[in-house]
């Protein structure tokens, strides 16, 4: 199961937000799109999730073109946005069930998945409360349950640890590495270099809509003769001037 981006390009008015970005995420791999705010990470993820139409290039999920075959491609994806995206007036159970039904799960399977996820993510005690009353960390767990309800083979997570405390960030990291262990292809974006270095198997460094380099954290550091990923990134963008 692979996620492929082929020369993805997107412009807003005269500004090229994403400029010919290509990469591939393999099964059992965590691929991190790394870059500062405004680098084009979120736009790239949105194009892969089928939320935005690329001006040029294409995205494939397990060989299915996201634009030509959108429903089938999206069914193979879990997409979590930068915000937790929960309905304040619904309970976590209702939110997860709603998305489960939209993803085509039958009621029996849905119940089973809700119980599994509630146990795995430690949210059993929250399931009957309204989402509006949950803390940021709790919301992130519920949001993960919502994204994973259909047990998809590919995960796209946009800034999954943004705004979370250390404990909650660690929890999310555990969920992501657990998914990798189960053979999922995981594509995430982050601007936390240290987190990416720890979590990702491969990293794509983005700047001003372009993918400057990609490779494992170690390979990128070696190439730039840097001690950290942050240093490697800074050398890359200054060297390009």
């Amino acid at each position, binding site marked *: 199961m692979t996620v492929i981006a082929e020369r993805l390009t997107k412009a807003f008015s005269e*500004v090229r937000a994403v400029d010919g970005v290509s990469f591939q995420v393999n099964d059992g791999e965590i691929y991190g799109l790394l870059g500062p705010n405004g680098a084009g990470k979120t736009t790239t993820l949105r194009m892969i999730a089928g939320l935005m139409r690329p001006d040029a290039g294409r995205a494939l999920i397990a060989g299915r073109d996201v634009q030509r075959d959108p429903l089938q491609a999206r*069914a193979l994806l879990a997409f*979590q946005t930068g915000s937790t995206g929960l*309905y304040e007036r*619904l309970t976590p159970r209702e939110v997860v069930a*709603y*998305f489960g039904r939209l993803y085509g799960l039958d009621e029996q399977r849905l119940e089973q998945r809700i119980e599994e996820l509630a146990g795995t993510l430690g949210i059993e005690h929250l399931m009957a409360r309204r989402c509006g009353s949950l803390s940021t960390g709790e919301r992130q767990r519920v949001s993960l349950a*919502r994204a994973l309800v259909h047990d998809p083979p590919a995960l796209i997570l946009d800034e999954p640890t943004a705004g979370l405390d250390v404990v909650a960030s660690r929890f999310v990291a555990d969920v992501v590495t657990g998914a990798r262990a189960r053979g999922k292809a995981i594509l995430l974006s982050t601007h936390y270099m240290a987190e990416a270095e720890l979590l990702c198997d491969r990293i794509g460094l983005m700047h001003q809509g372009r993918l400057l380099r990609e490779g494992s954290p170690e390979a990128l550091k070696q190439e730039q003769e840097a001690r950290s990923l942050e240093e490697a990134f800074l050398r890359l963008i200054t060297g390009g001037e």
Partner: protein
Amino acid sequence: MSPRIVGIVYRKELLETLRDRRTLVVMVVLPLCLYPIVGIGITQVVGSQEARRGQQSSRVALRGPDWPELQRSLVDGKQIELGREHATEQSVREGRVDLLLTVPPKLQQTLARDGTVKLELVYDDTRERSRLAHKRVTQEVERLARKIVQRRLKGHGLSRELVRPLTTGEKRVGTAHGRGAQLMARVVPMLVILMVLLGAFYPAIDVTAGEKERGTLETLLAAPVDRISLMAGKYLVVATAGVITGLLNLGSIGLTLSLGFGPALRAAGVASQDVPWSAVLLTVVAMVPAALFFAAILIAIAALGRSFKEAQNLLTPVLLVCQLPALVAQVPGIELNLFTAVIPVVNVSLLTRDLIAGRTAWLPAGVTILSLALYTVVALKLAARIFVGERLLFAPDPGAGKRRGIWGALLPHRGDRPPAEAPTPTQASLLFLVVMALILLVGQPMQARHLVAGLLVTEWVLIALPVLLLVWLGRVRLAGALALNRPAPAAMLGALLTGLSAWYLVGMLVETVQQRVMPMPPEMVREYHRALFSAERGLALDLFVLALSPAVCEELLFRGVLLQGTRRSMSPTWTVVVNGLLFGLFHISPYRFVSTMILGMVLALIVLRAGSILPGMLFHLLNNASAIVVGRLMGSQAVTSTSEPVLSWPLLSAAALLFALGLGLVFRAGPSGPRDPAG
């Protein structure tokens, strides 16, 4: 569209809506509490006020000689306190007495010679108590006057009938039930429209802009569901909220009137049991299409908002704009006819009124429902376009947002894509609605003030200019949008022949029938003659204003944007029929509807077949010019629909022959260039 997804979205949105306090207050709490509280409250207040007024006596100061008979009459009813204290106008003004009654000094002499005694009443008409005193004293004075008349007649040995040569016997044939219906027909339409709108207001914002603001829409759109199904589910919830609110309001009005509002009904000569509740419930026939229509409009506009507040700002004017037409049912003389049936909101108001009053004309009622359905479809298509468009889903870069804003969602990006070949059906429909609104609001009032200037402004500014703006802003290829192609010479010749003959053939034939079925009122005939055959204007001016201008401007709209925008989404037959219908509606007169509709169909047929708008313009020019020229030559009698048409069979046969020959030429010629596969 997937019904399964629509159902899932509908159930979830309904659950959320029912948990929204704002919506619940407007949808349930307001109707259930408002009418009983206000109704019963008002009844109590009015009732107690009336009771208090009844018990309150009027202080009347008497000046002049004593007149025991009058004084007895005044105090007999126990509501007037008569005083002899010194009082002046100032006393009345200051409220120390309610009325000052002055009896003239030579009272007895005047009475003895059967003269007229003039009593002077001074009261303060700005004071409620003083007005009441005036009413009471006047009643008593009139009663006494009648007694004196009787006495005088008797004294002269005359009968009462001498001074009462005429009387009327009245019988009200309107039943209490009918009066109840009339009362409800005045009140219910406006309440229903406003409440349906209010009920759908917050849900429309919540399910669109609200979802964007909360960041839930992005995750929802990443699910493997088509966006049309998502929108349909959301739309149905908004419509449901509108219907529930409307029904609860109706029920609450009914209960309040039945239980607590009795005095108000009695004041109108109606008892609770006289209110036609079954007819009031029949208003559901109008309420459901109205709710579907309002929901589509609200959701289309709310979807433009990127936040709850922005959507609220956008929707508030809609609420305000709808209030005025909602009041139409209260205006006497405005009927539901084929014209008012196509004016949104006005048609709902009038249909609701007629349904309650039990005098529904079923043809306009059907047109109302159909036109509402048409507007709903257009609004839904617009809503779908906005909903599937990514431009409003994600905040664009600030520069682009500032430059384009909300209108950017409606009009394609200039420079982003190559120009479109033709306008979309939505663009075409919206343009028609905009032009109609402009004509009704600006063109007609201007024409009423100054006919020639009004007509010119209508044609060139209100019709042609919006067409060109749409082509420019919507980035549509000019030639494609307006069918500006070179026609085959035979097609132009065909248009010439049909144009010269159509005014007589269509005009005379249709209008002969129409004069028998639905004759134009005489005052309208005179007005029409004045417009078309004014000797004060030169022929050249008339031809420019009444023939050339419509031929260019109206053709740009109807056979240009409307025909080119709709022909790709409909079969040729339907395209022609719809174009003709819209052309008929455009003339805003039930008396000219059929003839202009037929002319519109012929024009659409010619332009479609010729692949060019120019034969259409030529036809239109010649048709109007022939009517004007022949009208001037022969006098007005034989030419227009406004007079009793004089049919000449030889002329008619010649016109039919020319017409058939011309149409045959157009069909034979076809388009001059390569045929458009969509056409």
